[in-house]
């Protein structure tokens, strides 16, 4: 079973979300997602300062097999991008919750966070997807 961290929020499209101490919101893909994708070979990062809506596709992760869109979990402005994953895409496989983060958002409010999945809800979501296979 893939690792699901309790201190993170998740989306049904398998992004994880963390609110950092500086108020920025870090986004990556879950362990479940990286495991399902397989070897990540290319990451297309968003542009810094770009304004994004919730559920807007903002980045692309390519595995050997397929390209997958990465969606903004909440509305905001792209504050930082992780250049390291562009140089070494395998970081998404090796450390999805750490060095494999993709971008950080600056958000106006944390209100829409209530719509995101908690760890337990996300676990149920992954189990349901597993059973579909």
């Amino acid at each position, binding site marked *: 079973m893939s690792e699901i961290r309790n201190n993170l929020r998740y989306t049904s499209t398998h992004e994880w979300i963390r609110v950092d101490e500086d108020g920025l919101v870090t986004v990556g893909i879950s362990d479940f997602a990286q495991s399902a994708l*397989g070897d990540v070979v290319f990451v297309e990062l968003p542009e810094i300062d770009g304004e994004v809506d919730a559920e807007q596709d903002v980045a*692309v992760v*390519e595995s050997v097999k397929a390209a997958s869109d990465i969606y903004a979990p909440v509305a905001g402005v792209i504050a930082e991008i992780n250049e390291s994953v562009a140089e070494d895409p395998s970081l998404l496989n090796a450390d999805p919750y750490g060095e494999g983060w993709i971008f950080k958002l600056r958000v106006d409010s944390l209100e829409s966070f209530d719509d995101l999945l908690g760890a337990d809800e996300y676990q149920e979501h992954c189990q349901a997807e597993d059973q579909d296979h």
Partner: protein
Amino acid sequence: MKTPLHDIHVQLKAQMVEFAGWQMPMRYGSTIDEHHAVRNHAGMFDVSHMLPVDITGTESTKFLQHVLATDVRTLAEDGHALYSVILNENGGIIDDLIVYRLANEQYRIILNAGAATADLDWINQQLRSTHFEVKINPRRDLNILAVQGPEAIKFAEQVLNISLQTVRRFSATKFSGIFIARTGYTGEDGIEILCTDEVLLKLWEQFHCKGVVPCGLGARDTLRLEAGMNLYGQDMDTTTTPFESGIAWVIKDLAAERDFVGKTALLSQQRNGIPTKLTGIVLEGAVMRSGYEVSTSVGKGIVTSGTFSPTLRYSIALARIPRAAKGECEVTIRSKSKMGRIVRPPFVREGERVHR
């Protein structure tokens, strides 16, 4: 459908996918690791979904000369093999295959899983209309284990306890009832073993103990694409001729007397001009996929197979583009235009870059 190794694949935690109605392993762990295992050491593939068909009878040669685009009379000795295609009347490709000469008037062809039913319908239809003295025997009782890589022959000799030194590339032999062909779909040396369920399970276990790495369809795809080999149904189908599919070399004797299904259409296409070609594209900074649009200085085309090459570490693709196209091209990737270069496949041979 399931191969006899299905439970073993599941035990090995393979990601299973459906392919042509079969539950097949896509990858056991990392596709890239499996790919490198085959390029540098040895890997094995369960390809039991493919269908061997025996063609026997006093007029087998005549029948195959009619059905296949390549003349089977060029198979000078028992055990020799050649790559060919079955064409329809329009010169379109019904399937590609390897045909082995087992003995005088005895042949074995191996059909793609996705095309096997249509192939058999077509072959039987051809038999009814030609009345040759031939028996068609699909061998669902036979499985196929492909062991591929620079160390494949060494391991196969140890496991099977035979010498394969006399079995040349692209030929086959029989050993204790097991059919062993020095063929494959990876661009590496190796063998394909045709055997019963019991033997398959035993061989898999023995090769696994030797350290031969189980490989899935994912690695099979990156390996064949690096080697510049077509995938039937993706790079070619019933609407494309061998001339438009990068395999004009299978058509060796259009001027000769032998008639075969599709010959008239091929001659006509040769006279009237062949509009497209299937060739290679290399591109850095993104990954090409099947269906992406290609723009060249002489018109548009389409990517038929694309991937990330684990050996070269950039994207490689086969694409059907205007015949005169060369040099640089643009590939549309997620509404953005990326610069690629038209090159002649193969991309990799024996682990080294060979395209220019």
